[in-house]
């Protein structure tokens, strides 16, 4: 019975930014729970590698190149998923970027680019996936927030604004689409060892040790730490869980 609670056999999941880091960690979890995966990303080489790995592990997976900020491209991506995998049960809005500059230096086009990639993309993808989920009688949407959904950082004004926004967008969808049996939740990763944060660690002096010192778990997170939460929020184990924002941060956000 419990195995059934977390079982995703026959389900189809879209993971944007699914070819690396947290996205791939989630895709691996979903694949191992039985879901077919559409890996959406801009970097086609990385997407092909991710699909090869997921396929080798026994899952069905396809790579789809799409700019998630472009509505036409997203509509095309959704149509391809429906054509190739037959349905859409799970959407993980994970694609994200950061431009590290303080508020007085970040340019308007840089601001727009971060907001579009991190926040507008989730709106565009969710809207595009909604009809298929509604017709199917249910669905699961997982939006990736951040510690900067709740904290400020001097070097990430647009990133923090986008991640605060995505939590409120999550709550809006949760309330709006609950009658369609679509649960929408946000995951707030702490400091995770990925390409994105490797750049940050190179550029920000002392970041690595500062994070270590403040994280009660005493380590940086790994992409594999996201498999569990992804499966929980994608499965019927979470059918009465909607509109939440769940930190996966080794306790970083509760350290006083």
């Amino acid at each position, binding site marked *: 019975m419990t195995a059934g609670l977390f079982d995703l056999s026959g389900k189809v999941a879209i993971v944007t930014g699914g070819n690396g880091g947290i996205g791939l960690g989630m895709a691996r979890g979903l694949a191992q729970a039985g879901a077919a995966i559409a890996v959406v990303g801009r970097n086609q080489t990385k997407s092909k590698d991710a699909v090869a790995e997921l396929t080798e592990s026994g899952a069905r997976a396809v790579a789809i190149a799409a700019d998630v900020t472009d509505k036409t491209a997203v509509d095309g991506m959704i149509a391809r998923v429906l054509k190739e995998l037959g349905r859409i049960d799970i959407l993980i809005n994970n694609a994200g970027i950061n431009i590290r500059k303080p508020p007085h230096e970040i340019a308007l086009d840089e601001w727009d680019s971060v907001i579009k990639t991190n926040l507008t993309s989730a709106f565009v993808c969710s809207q595009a996936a909604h009809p298929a989920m509604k017709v199917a009688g249910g669905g699961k949407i997982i939006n990736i927030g951040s510690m900067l959904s709740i904290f400020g950082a001097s070097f990430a004004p647009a990133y923090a604004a986008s991640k605060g926004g995505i939590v409120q967008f999550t709550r809006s969808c949760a309330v709006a689409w609950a009658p369609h049996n679509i649960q929408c939740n946000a995951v707030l990763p702490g400091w995770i060892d990925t390409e994105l944060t490797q750049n940050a660690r190179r550029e920000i002096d002392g970041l690595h040790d500062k994070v270590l010192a403040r994280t*009660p778990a005493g380590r940086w997170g790994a992409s594999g730490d996201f498999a569990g939460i992804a499966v929980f929020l994608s499965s*019927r184990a979470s059918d009465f869980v*909607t509109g939440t924002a769940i930190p996966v941060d080794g306790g970083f*956000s509760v350290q006083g």
Partner: protein
Amino acid sequence: MHGGGGHLLTSNLFDLTGRVAIVTGGNTGIGLGMAHGLANAGAALVIADRNRDNAASAKAELETSGHPVLALTTDVADPNSIAQMVSATLNAFGRIDILVNNAGISISAPIEDMTLADWQKVIDVNMTAPFICAQAVYPTMKAAGRGKIINIASVLATLGAGGAANYASSKGGILQFTRALATAWAADNIQSNAILPGWIDTDLTKRAKDIRPELHDRILGRVPAQRWGRPDDLAGAAVFLASGASDFVNGAALTVDGGFSIQG
């Protein structure tokens, strides 16, 4: 990036085979719903409850999972009873991997009329008892090198309720206690998290509905999911927070309320 967890089978991520869980207030309602989830994931269960009436039927129900179940008569308002609960568990199973602090009571009254005794009783059971239970299981979890503590708060941990100041205060307190535990015992590989149930159909809320007949429809009208929760809605959250699937989740407050608390 290749994270360690990615190589595990997902079925193992949520597997509790060989683990021992204590659920206080585990005979009925949310406690029993979570106990079902944990037992079906493979855990041996200790249901510790003041109320003996449902002990035999709850034990029999849980035993259909095929895993051992121990039903204890425990009054979490009494520290000696908690000590007995822990020693009985260790005698029976030799270990404690999971503690679910679920036992709770509600005594409603307007703040201006609430007696100090009724305030204190609710704080003692809902907030102080989890402190005593956590302290009591800590040595065995620390020695084992891992553990999971799940505290049952409420959506009233963050929202107000005029008639339940004692209850809301105890639940806000348990949430902050969870965060303190999370930071204190992370180094011992013990993860502590809270679950915030919304309005769930249980004996506790049935009594509330008896006192306030309009409550049923008022809640229905506000829950985006358009239904009251059921005890088994908590099973998934319990298994997630009790298993290896949540090893980097610590100090979190996981709301299970069908969207009630975020409805504007």
